[in-house]
């Protein structure tokens, strides 16, 4: 069973805004940090191989955590859109679109994504984390501060993206 895979360095990066026993306010899931990275990766179009970028990569979850399940097909849709654009496929090219759909989706999978699709999402998450560490001078210490800053970074990335702004 395939898992979403998390770079250990990204897990470490988010630790100060992750909810702990003593700190009640913060991200409650490892997947939260992964998700912010995915969104920034999709927004910037950056992808990287997690294993190449980090000393250790660990299997995280084999399905979307409960709070994200309503969004799992939305995330899959964004992934398809990003990949169509990256591969230079127009949404009017039926066979090519179908081929990408078949490659990235899997009806039998818990995530609705094929192994290839999950691996691709891991690559966007890794690329997004690379972008995040370039844009933030230091690790975030307060979620309220991080939320505002990451929102601004994603907005800026989308505003500069042909994938999202001009084709959408």
């Amino acid at each position, binding site marked *: 069973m395939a898992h979403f895979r998390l770079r250990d360095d990204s897990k470490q990066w988010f630790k100060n805004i992750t909810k702990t026993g003593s700190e009640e306010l913060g991200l409650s899931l490892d997947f939260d940090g992964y998700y912010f990275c995915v969104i920034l990766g999709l927004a910037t179009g950056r992808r990287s191989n997690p294993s190449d970028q980090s000393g250790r990569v660990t299997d995280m979850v084999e399905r979307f955590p409960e709070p994200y399940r309503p969004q799992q097909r939305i995330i899959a849709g964004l992934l398809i859109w990003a990949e169509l654009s990256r591969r230079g496929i127009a949404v009017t090219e039926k066979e090519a679109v179908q081929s990408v759909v078949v490659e990235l989706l899997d009806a039998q999978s818990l995530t609705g994504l094929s192994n290839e699709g999950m691996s691709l999402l891991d690559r966007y998450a890794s690329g997004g984390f690379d972008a995040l560490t370039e844009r933030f001078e230091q690790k975030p210490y307060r979620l309220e501060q991080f939320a505002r800053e990451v*929102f601004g970074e994603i907005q800026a990335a989308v505003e500069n993206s042909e994938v999202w702004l001009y*084709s959408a």
Partner: protein
Amino acid sequence: MKIELAGWSSKGLRSPDLEVSFKRDGRVPHVAFVQMPNGTGKTTTLRLLRAALTGIATQWPPEEVLRFRRPSSDEDLGEFIVRLDVDNRPLTIRMAFDFDAQSVRYQTTFGSGQKESFSPPADVGRFLERHFVELFVFDGEFAEELLKPNAMRAKRAIDALFQLHLLDDISAAAEEEWHRATRAASAKGQAGYSRRRNRLDKLREQLRRVKKARKEAEQRTSALEAECEELSRKITTHIGDTEDQRRRLEEKQTEANAAKSAVDVTVTELLPILRKPTAFHPAFAKALVRLREHLDKLKLPASTSIEFFRELQEQETCVCGRPLDEASRAALAKRAASFMGEDYNGVLNSLKADIGSQVEPNCEGPAKDLSDHLTVLGERVKTRDKADSEVRVLRKRLIDSGGDAVKKWEEQRRQKQEEVDKLHQLIDDIDRLAEADDKEDTRCLQALKRYEAEAVRELSEITETLDLRVRTEVLKKLLAEAKAIAEKELRRTIIDSCNSRLRDVLSRDPPEIVEIAGSLRLKGQEGASVGQTQAIGYTFQTTLLSRSEHQFPLVVDSPANPMDITVRTEIARIVPQLCRQFVALTISTERLGFVDAIHKAADGDVLYLTAFRKTEGTKHLVAGLPAEGVLQTESGVLVEGQEYFNRFDLAEED
């Protein structure tokens, strides 16, 4: 198990073409003499018998193969077939000689099965190996070697019969199993064990230290926080001269607490909004809507699935009624590729449905919602930070005006708070997630636990390896001891039995075997006469065979040739008692003192065969053959009968 030699046949080889069968009325006689004058191929026949029974000929070098070729013959092929009865079931081993290719191939037939190789059944095969076959297909050379000081024939014969090498095989199997089981192990020795044990001990000590430090830090933090609180209370009680100032500080503190709560609430409300990707930018929502629209325009998922076309290809006619030919089926297969399977249709429909239900047509809602929340959050953060700042300023001012005692308490409180902060950092460092560069002296509990699990796994691996090594050594030692004891006891009983028989056979001057090392050692003499040697050989060999629970034929080349008449008679008297089938390849001069004695000892259950080669010199013999019991081939003659056997003589024989 009972193994009998039913006969053999030879064709196209150095010895004359003959088919020798010992079975009469469905059984083999107790004794069979095959009288073969010199030059008829006794030695060749004995070697062929051994080769057929051991499978050795596939290892023969070309010159060895060619030795069996009939002189001045153009024939490229030859064969030698041995027929055995194993518990009354026929086992046939055929050697096919190809003199052109200079090789020998085997064929084995047992029951209804036939194999193109030397493949006797396993329970028979364990006896059909060189050292054992030499015991029951026997010649003078073997007897001589039994007494040669440095030869190992005696020992090998004992090993072969009692199969003590099986104990070595078990030992080797145990060793092999240890290697197999530990092949993947990275360390196998005591040094590796000590290294891993030390590593685990160190890690556990570090874990114990870290846990103790954490517990002490928690206790100390708790105590310090209580002290800080007490100092703060004392400071608050004593600072400022006026009630008014104190009330102002309390009000500001209440405001700061409320501002902090407002921020916390906003952040808590924010998280579910952040978990919606479309909240980050309307462009995400627009892209999804556009994707959905285009999937609809492309008719994806298609109303007809790939399965429909695959099934249609199997039909005789199309849904429209037209017959489907190969061209139509190929076209269907090609078109089908542009349709997706039904399962993809389902997942794509769900994707479109989710986009339809969760993404608003104007696409702006979630992004505006998030933006508004973040704006509110920003304002509340500012309010909180301002309130915190005011509390700090007011507090400092009050402390400054409170006198030396209050300043001292505040300094104490500050120092204690610093210590609390450091202890929190320590606890955080202990509780943090493991990092790739954590070493084994880290304070991170998660990293230490990972290292400990790894060390336990490695130690467990080598512990199992060492345990298996110890058990392997114990087993090997037991096997070696068992073998040594068995060898010693077997030698002792065999020596006793042999000496007892030698006293009967060579009663006038019996040699005495005192030791069986590699060879037999006689008491007070370095060697023995030819006759003594042969007698000792018989004695040793028949003693061994008589100790086996299995029955084997005893095939002997020139059984009486080197012995004087007295010894011959003694040997002849005992041989039938020691085996159930005795086959002797003899020459005419051995008859005296031997044949009659055996005939008597075997109660007349004796088959007499005489074989000779057809040559210029034997034409007169062919002319004088009896009317019955004669088998002739192009190159040889086989005559059955005691009378012919006894009168057969040739001037050239010794």
